[in-house]
């Protein structure tokens, strides 16, 4: 089926490890892991998703004729949970999740319709301190996953809303401006704004949207151009968040991006995106969505983010070359009376945290070597009796050792 694929051992292992690293980092920040179903009722999803997002859902009916869908993101299910089964839990709630999400749209995820996301939500905490916590955690998650070079762009949805309120344009032109910005079509935007006689500072800002990036100085520059309360408040909040991110120790990876273009119907405050080297798309994104919980009957401010796990592994593969399977530590072969010894050695090695495979059939030494190569382990242990076994490390001559010594020999070599 187009858009779906199998992950083979090497890929699956890297993906799983990245997922564990991300969840472990989130747990270090006090976030509790929740697992929500892959299937949600459309009644639930409709409360949280826009029209375009709903269109992309895989939908079907269950036995009672109710329409259900495979989740396309996991913030809405977590919001349902926070307002439902967790409604008596004191706020703020810190929750994290991991799992696949699906989209009928092949283009959206680069020909992939099933992708993996890991995310965290901070529910019930307003203000800059909560915003900064989530951004700093996203940055630390990048590091935990093994991404060395990355940057986080921080913006504010209200900055844009304020400009759209203040800009002097007929309603139908305003609507067209929103469409052009959503499509990132600055040529259309320019011609729309040129055709109106009224010029204001807000026109200038809209035209310069993709270039409104930089450090703290960009807040000053923008502050000199906007004259509306919403945008001014947004700039003040951004300044505060930036200060807090300095205290979090991640100032060097943070840029301010006043022209960030996102789903502005959903986000209500500080928004951010994380980029790594050599990848054309953001690997993490998030922001404040204070309106969502109220739709589930528990009004509460909230902020959060998600990491595209597929993009993390893609980035790791690019920076560290092709993914290689972690090697097995030992291939344990046997003949005749050696089977019990082989099983005992296998158990001991695994107890010490090593990876060991015990052969399923008896093999003479020569055939055992061929099997060893196929398995791809660092050591071959050949057991032919209860008292002594033959141990061979890659590129070395075989040695006779006692079965009890095998673990310590291997542990020495494996650096345990």
């Amino acid at each position, binding site marked *: 089926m187009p858009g779906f694929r199998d992950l083979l051992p090497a890929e699956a292992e890297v993906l799983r490890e990245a997922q564990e690293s991300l969840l472990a980092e989130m747990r270090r920040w006090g976030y509790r892991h929740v697992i929500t179903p892959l299937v949600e009722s459309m009644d639930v999803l409709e409360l949280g998703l826009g029209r375009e997002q709903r269109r992309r859902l895989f939908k079907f009916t269950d036995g009672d004729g109710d329409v259900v869908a495979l989740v396309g993101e996991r913030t809405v299910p977590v919001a349902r949970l926070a307002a439902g089964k967790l409604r008596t839990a004191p706020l703020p709630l810190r929750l994290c999740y991991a799992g696949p999400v699906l989209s009928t749209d092949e*283009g959206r995820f*680069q020909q992939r319709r099933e992708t993996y996301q890991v995310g965290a939500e901070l529910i019930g905490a307003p203000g800059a301190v909560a915003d900064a916590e989530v951004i700093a955690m996203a940055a630390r998650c990048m590091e935990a996953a093994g991404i060395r070079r990355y*940057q986080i*762009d921080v913006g504010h949805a209200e900055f844009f809303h304020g400009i759209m309120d203040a800009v002097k344009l007929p309603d139908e032109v305003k609507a067209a401006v929103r469409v052009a910005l959503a*499509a*990132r*079509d*600055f*040529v*259309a935007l*320019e*011609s729309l704004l040129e055709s109106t006689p009224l010029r204001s500072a807000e026109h200038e800002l809209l035209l310069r949207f*993709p*270039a409104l*990036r930089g450090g703290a100085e960009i807040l000053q520059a923008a502050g000199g151009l906007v004259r509306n309360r919403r945008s001014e408040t947004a700039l003040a909040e951004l300044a505060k968040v930036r200060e807090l991110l300095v205290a979090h120790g991640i100032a060097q990876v943070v*840029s301010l*991006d006043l022209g960030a273009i996102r789903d502005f119907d959903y986000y209500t405050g500080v928004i951010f*995106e994380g*980029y790594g*080297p*050599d*990848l*054309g*798309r*953001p690997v993490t994104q998030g922001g404040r969505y204070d309106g969502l919980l109220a739709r589930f009957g528990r009004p509460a401010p909230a902020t959060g983010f998600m990491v595209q796990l597929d993009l993390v592994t893609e980035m790791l593969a690019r920076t560290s070359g092709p993914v290689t399977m972690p090697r097995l530590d030992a291939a344990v072969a046997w003949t005749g009376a050696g089977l019990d010894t082989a099983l005992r050695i296998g158990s001991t090695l695994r107890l010490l945290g090593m990876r060991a495979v015990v052969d399923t059939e008896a093999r003479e030494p020569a055939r055992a070597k061929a099997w060893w190569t196929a398995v791809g382990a660092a050591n071959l242990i050949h057991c032919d009796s209860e008292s002594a076994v033959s141990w061979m490390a890659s590129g070395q001559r075989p040695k006779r050792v006692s079965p009890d010594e095998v673990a310590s020999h291997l542990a020495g070599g494996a650096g345990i």
Partner: protein
Amino acid sequence: MSGERTSIAIPTGVLTSGALELLARSGLIQLSPEELGRQLLVDRSGLRVILVRPTDVPAYVDHGAADLGIVGKDILWETPGAHYELVDLHLGPCRLVLAVPDSSSLDGPETWPPLVRIATKYPRTAAAWFESRGQAVEVVRLHGSVELAPLVGLVDGIVDLTATGRTLRENHLRVTAVLGDSTARLIANQASLKTRTQAVQSVVSKLREVAGVAR
């Protein structure tokens, strides 16, 4: 986005020489269509220029294989993506039109039958245009010589790109509506604009400057 140099994808075909002339006039790189055509990929003067099929330019840019791309607006109508469309380069102007045989009774919307059948290389754009006018349409996707389709009775009309209108006239077709005007655009990868803002923006502003000059 490989390495630190800024990369730009140039389309093969009618836009190649105009795009290279813009790059030369902006002082970015002197490169002849012949040299680029021979090598397909040229690294020089801190710039990487790659030559790809017009329909592939958005893919190179969206995936980050090129920071920037030059591509006709007609291609962007058919393949919307996650890129930024930054500058109208005013190159290769042409129009996307609805054309019918000279002998046809079809003209304005009031003359359209309940189901209009059209042939086109732009199925997405054509379908959206009719749909927004509440008109049912059957779109036949063709890959070349679209103007033949109405002459042999396959369809009522065609939606195709025309610069001078000559091909249409030669095939006894007349224009009844204009769906859109197209010129070459400069597009940019969203991450390139953010991760290497200065280098990419400097190329963008140089091209913006020369594109404004009347040709």
